C-alpha cells in the first residue's frame, strides 16, 4: 500500500465529499411531472419531408399507418392519381399536436381537401342501409354499393358516418371504396364516356382514343373532368369491336371512334350540348 501520505486520508476525504453531495439539489428530471423543454431545432418529430426535387417522398399508401401498432402515424396528402387521402391514427402522440393537420402546421401548402368542411348529407337512408348491414364492417362492400345507389356517389359525410357507426376505420372504408372501380367519390355527373380497353380495341387504336379523351377531359380513367361535367370510365366489348375501338357515350355505342372524334365529343360534352349535335 503506497503510504507516502496518511493512508486513509484520501478515502475519508472522498466519503465526506459524498456526504456533502447529499445536500446538493439532484439533477433528475422527473419525467411525467417535469418536462425537459425540447429545443426548437429538435429533429425527433415525425414531420412529412419533401425530397430535394420538391416532390412528396410519401405516396400516402397507408401501409405504415395501418401497420403501426399504436396508431400514432398521422398522415394526409395527395396520391399520384391526384386523389386526396384522409388522415389516419390518433394525433395526440405529441402533446402539442392538437390541431387537425400536421401538414398545415408544417407550413407546407398541400391541398388537403378532406379537411375542407364537407357539406352535410341527409343520413336517414344511410342509417337504414347500416341497419340492414347489421353495422358489421364485414358487409362494408354491400353497404357502400347501396349507399352509392342512394346518393349517386359516396359523399365524405356518409363515409364518416358509416365509419363512426360500424367502428371500421375511415381509411379502411375509403381504401375499400378506391379498390372497386364502380364506386365513385365525385358527385354524379351529366355525361359518362366509356372506352373499351380490351386488346382487340387497343389494336384498333383504342389507346389513342383513350389518350385523346384523357387530354381533353383533363382526367384519367375513373375520374371526372375538373368542371364535373363528364366522367371517363371503362367498359368491355367482349372482343366484338370491329373497325375502330368501342366507345359508349351516355350508353349508346359510337359507330366509329378516332382521336379527333374524341376531341370533339369531349368538348361538346363539357359544353353540355346534348350528344346528338356533337356527333
Amino acid at each position, binding site marked *: 500500500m503506497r503510504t507516502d501520505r496518511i493512508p486513509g486520508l484520501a478515502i475519508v476525504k472522498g466519503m465526506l465529499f459524498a456526504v456533502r453531495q447529499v445536500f446538493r439539489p439532484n439533477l433528475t428530471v422527473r419525467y411525467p411531472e417535469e418536462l425537459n423543454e425540447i429545443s426548437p*431545432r429538435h429533429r425527433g418529430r415525425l414531420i412529412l419531408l419533401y425530397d430535394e426535387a420538391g416532390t412528396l417522398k410519401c405516396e400516402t399508401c397507408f401501409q405504415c399507418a395501418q401497420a403501426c401498432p399504436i396508431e400514432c402515424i398521422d398522415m394526409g396528402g395527395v396520391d399520384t392519381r391526384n386523389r386526396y387521402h384522409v388522415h389516419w391514427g390518433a394525433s395526440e402522440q405529441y402533446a402539442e399536436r392538437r390541431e387537425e393537420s400536421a401538414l398545415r402546421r408544417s407550413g407546407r401548402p398541400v391541398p388537403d381537401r378532406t379537411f375542407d368542411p364537407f357539406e352535410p348529407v341527409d343520413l336517414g337512408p344511410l342509417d337504414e342501409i347500416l341497419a340492414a348491414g347489421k353495422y358489421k364492417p364485414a358487409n362494408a362492400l354491400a353497404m357502400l354499393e347501396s349507399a352509392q345507389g342512394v346518393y349517386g356517389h359516396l359523399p365524405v359525410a356518409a363515409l364518416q358516418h358509416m365509419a363512426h357507426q360500424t367502428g371500421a376505420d375511415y381509411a379502411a372504408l375509403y381504401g375499400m371504396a378506391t379498390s372497386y372501380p364502380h364506386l365513385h367519390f365525385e358527385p354524379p355527373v351529366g355525361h359518362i364516356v366509356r372506352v373499351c380497353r380490351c386488346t382487340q380495341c387497343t389494336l384498333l387504336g383504342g389507346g389513342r382514343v383513350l389518350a385523346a379523351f384523357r387530354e381533353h377531359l383533363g382526367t384519367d380513367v375513373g375520374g371526372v373532368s375538373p368542371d364535373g361535367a363528364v366522367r371517363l370510365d371503362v367498359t368491355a366489348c367482349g372482343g366484338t369491336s370491329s373497325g375502330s375501338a368501342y366507345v359508349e357515350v351516355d350508353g349508346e355505342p359510337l359507330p366509329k371512334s378516332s382521336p379527333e372524334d374524341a376531341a370533339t365529343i369531349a368538348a361538346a360534352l363539357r359544353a353540355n350540348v346534348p350528344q346528338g349535335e356533337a356527333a
Partner: protein
Amino acid sequence: MTTPREQVRSLDDPEVMVQTPGTIYDTIPPLTPRTEREAEFYDVGDGEMLVNLGPQHPSTHGVLRVVLKIDGEKIVDLDPVMGYLHRGVEKICEHGDWHHAISNTDPLEYAASMFSESLPVLSAERLLELEVPRRAEYIRVLAWELNRISSHALFIGWLALDLGGITPILYGFGERDEIVEMLASLTGQKLLFNYMRIGGVNGDLNHDFLSRLGDWMSRAGARINDQATLMNENEIFVNRTKGLGVVSREMALQYGMSGPPLRATGVPYDVRRAHPYSVYPELEFDIPVRSDGDSYARYLLHVDEIKQSLRIIDQVLHQMPDGPVMAKLPRLLRVPPGRAFAALESPRGQYAVYAVSDGSDQPFRFRIHDPSFFNLQAVVPLTRGHLLADIMAIMASLDPIMGGIDK
C-alpha cells in the same frame, strides 16, 4: 486443399458431439484450428479453463467477445473476437452520395459522433479545394471541443464503473447531459448530431444554444472536478490502476496507437498540432503529455485535456467572426476525381479517412482509420498474466468504442 467450409464438421459428428451435460469443464472443442497460434491457444492444459467474456457482457464498451484461457484467477492467454458490430460502413458509403456518408459515419464513434461525421466533410472539402467560411470553421471547433469534453466525462465515469465505483459515472453523466442538451439546441440531436455539412455546418448558433453555453461556461467542468476528487488520490483506485497495463513508447508506436494512450507514453503527437486543420493553428493550447504510460496516467491525461478544451472554447467564443455558415454548393455535388487523406484528433486518437473519388457523386472508396481499433489491440500483450479483474481496468483505460472498431 479443403476450403474452410469443408473443414466445418457437422454437429452429429461424434467427436464434435457435446458430452453429457453436467460436467462443468466440457467445452465444445473449436473447429480444427486454422493457424498455429489458434492451435496453441485452444489446447487447454489441466487446471485451465476457457471462459467467454462477452459478447454480451456489462463492461465491454459495446459488443466485444474475449475468449480467456484462465488458470484460477490468472489470465494465461486471451483471444479477442471482434466483428459483432460490423455493418460494412465503408461499403455502404460507396453506395450513397457524399452527403449520405455523413449520416453513415455518424454512429461510428457514437460517444463523440461530431468527430466521426466530420470525416467525409473534411475529405470532400480537401478534394473540392472548397474554401469553408471562417465562421463555420470556428463553429466546428466549438462543436468538436464540446463533444470532446462530454466524451472524456463519459470515459472517466466508465473507468470508475468498471472498477466498481458507482458514483463517478453519475457525475460524468451529469456533466455530459448538460453539454449534450446544449448541442441538441444547436444541432437538433443528442447522440448522433449529423450537424457537419460539406462546406460548413447545418445551422448557425442560435440564442437558445448561446444562453445555455453561457451559463454552463460559468461552472464548466465542475462535475468533472467532483469525479477527480473522488478518484485521484483514492488508494483503492490508485492501486487498481497504477502500474497496470504499462505501454512503452516503442510498443505504442509499433501498435500505431494514437490519442491519450500514446500521449501517456511521452509521445506528444496530436493531430491538431502535428497536421493542423481548420482554425487550430490560430488557437493557443498545449498538449498534455505524461510519461509512465499506465492506466492511471491515461486517466490523468483525460482530466488535463478537458482543461485544454475549455481554454479552446474560451478563445473560439471571443474570436468568433460573422458571416455565412455554409459555402455555395451545386445541388448535385460531383467531387472531382482524386484521393484525399483527412485526419482529425478525436477524444480517442487520430480519426482519419482515405477517400477516393472517381468524379461521380458517390465516393469510390472510403477507407476509415479508427483510433480505438489500434488502441484496443494492445489489450492482448498487456493483460496476459494479469488477474481477471485487471482486464476490465486495462480495457476501460484504453477507452475503445466498438462501433468504430468493427465499422
